[in-house]
């Protein structure tokens, strides 16, 4: 931008005096949002004011109010929306947590293998990742769930299998880079077996990068899980799930907006938290590495 000569910039300031201790405020806010939802989901049976599946015959589609006990109103079957939102956080968080962990594990393992193995292995895995990306994630998940049934474990496996290419690419390039470093050659010359030098020299440096990519995956998985449930392929009724609740309330949008909007707000707050955390993690990473290759 400004073409000031470099002399003026060296005013005694260190290159990057930004937050070295802990997270930025935004990151902490994001983490707090996610943890809050995790706690609410965990404690759902105890903190929910009503049974999430119980119809309140006196209150069908009651509007949100502080007065009559249904804080966020009830749905068209008279079920308490707040209780359903608490319980609906469970499938979202379980799917997002497990699928993200699985995808990171698969992607990292394949990435290290591709970075370490020969050209052929590398090419084959990279092609598979590329082919997978030609079918949009939601469409591929839709096909797989239609074929194998909408069970929770299928949902987790499919979303994990869809998200690994990102981690794969990061792990592969990091491994390729690490392999050419002197310490790896030294380890090899000293007769250290490959798997041990991977564990000692590749994995520790790779982990922070994978934390950053896993927040991206988690956001994608939360969105896709909600999208699939919205279409009717994810969590099946009568279970409570945010995407499903949004879909069920859609028909009543004109008469009772809170049916869809309340779970939508819950979903948005979780996604917002994930994004804030992800931004904080990656900006911290790039500040630690001095803006080098990230």
């Amino acid at each position, binding site marked *: 931008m400004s073409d000031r000569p470099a002399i003026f910039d060296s005013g005694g300031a260190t290159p990057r005096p930004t937050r070295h201790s802990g997270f930025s405020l935004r990151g902490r806010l994001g983490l707090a949002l996610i943890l809050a939802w995790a706690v609410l989901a965990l404690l759902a049976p105890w903190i929910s004011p009503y049974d999430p599946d119980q119809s309140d015959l006196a209150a069908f589609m009651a509007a949100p109010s502080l007065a009559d006990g249904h804080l966020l109103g009830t749905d068209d079957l008279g079920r308490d929306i707040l209780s359903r939102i608490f319980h609906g956080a469970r499938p979202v968080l379980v799917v997002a947590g497990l699928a993200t962990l699985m995808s990171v594990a698969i992607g990292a393992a394949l990435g290290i293998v591709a970075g370490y193995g020969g050209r052929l292995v590398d090419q084959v895995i990279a092609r598979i990742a590329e082919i997978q990306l030609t079918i949009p994630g939601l*469409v591929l998940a839709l096909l*797989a769930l239609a074929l194998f049934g909408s069970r929770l474990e299928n949902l987790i496996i499919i979303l994990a299998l869809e998200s690994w290419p990102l981690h794969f690419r990061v792990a592969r390039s990091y491994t390729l880079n690490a392999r050419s470093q002197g310490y790896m050659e030294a380890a090899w010359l000293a007769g250290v077996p490959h798997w041990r030098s991977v564990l000692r020299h590749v994995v520790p440096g790779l982990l922070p990068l994978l934390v950053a990519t896993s927040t991206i995956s988690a956001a994608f998985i939360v969105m896709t899980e909600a999208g699939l449930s919205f279409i009717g392929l994810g969590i099946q009724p009568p279970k409570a799930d945010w995407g499903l609740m949004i879909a069920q309330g859609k028909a009543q949008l*004109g008469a009772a907006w809170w049916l869809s909007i309340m779970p939508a707000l819950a979903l948005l707050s979780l996604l917002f938290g994930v994004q804030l955390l992800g931004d904080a993690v990656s900006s911290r990473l790039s500040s630690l590495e001095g803006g080098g290759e990230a």
Partner: protein
Amino acid sequence: MRPLRNRHLAADGPQPLQAAGPASPQVLDRLPRRPLDIRPSFLLQRLAATAVAVLGSISLVFCLVFATGSPATLLAGAQASREDIAALNALYGFDRPIYEQYGSFLLHAMRGEFPHSLRFDIPAFEVLAPAIPLTLLLVSSALVVGAVTGLAVGHLAATASSRLLREGPLALLTVVQSTPVFVTGILAVLLFSLTLGWFPTGGSGSLRHLVLPALTLSLLIAPPVARLFRTSLLQQRDKDHVRTALSKQISRTQVQLRHVAVNALVPVLALLGTQAGSLLGGAVLTETVFGWPGVGTVMVGAVGMKDYPVILAAVVLIAVTVSLCNLLADLLIAVVDPRTTVSR
């Protein structure tokens, strides 16, 4: 006289060849002469990559179908008679060895031939055919609106003089990006259809029906375009040829348009190519929200009725479309910026 020289300057823009010392005549020979002259080897390479992607995605679909255990009963339907299954086996060879099944599936899928729809008893592709133009209309209008919005916001973010204009719209788009498409759609329906009554809540048939779905889907593509265009503009602005043009007393707007913006568009084109997949995936959700009778709605309906041939046909159709979009983007970039074909 002057504009002509400007264009010449802009055309060879950021010059990697000169930066590396005087270009050898050989390298210059390899550069395409005319703007529309795409090198055959580059074309072949891209075509081959597209073919691999198409074959690969059809193979992936086959693997999934085969992994269910009994493709024939799946595709013939639960109430199929023994004869139905035998007929399907005769046609697709689901009783023969797996490599023959694979070959037969591949050949049929490439020709768009899938078993008959279980619901309508016509070829699966004919169920989809009437929906294709509607999805194309939705996606292409979303692409245009999204790209224009993204470019405008990106341009503002890079050049506006007030801080509010630089950061406000971009921040807004960033928030939009973490909103799932179907939530945006529902909010749009609530605000513009139910509260304000400007547009119908769903369906198709007129231009007014198209507005909300297209706007919703366009919000999927606008944020990444805006951010990339901003970065790209800022990079181009510091290039040598821009400084040269400015020092020649060419007006700032001229330089901004001819030398900065045009060159900054190239990475955006590449991005649009890679976004085809997410746009089509988003279209499935958008169509469901608005009851837009496109491919996505047909596919979701088929899922509900366990009409597997139609689902397969739709998935293959989408995969082929995505591959073709990627190819188109690559070729477009090669036309706009011929250097990309040399460096590979």
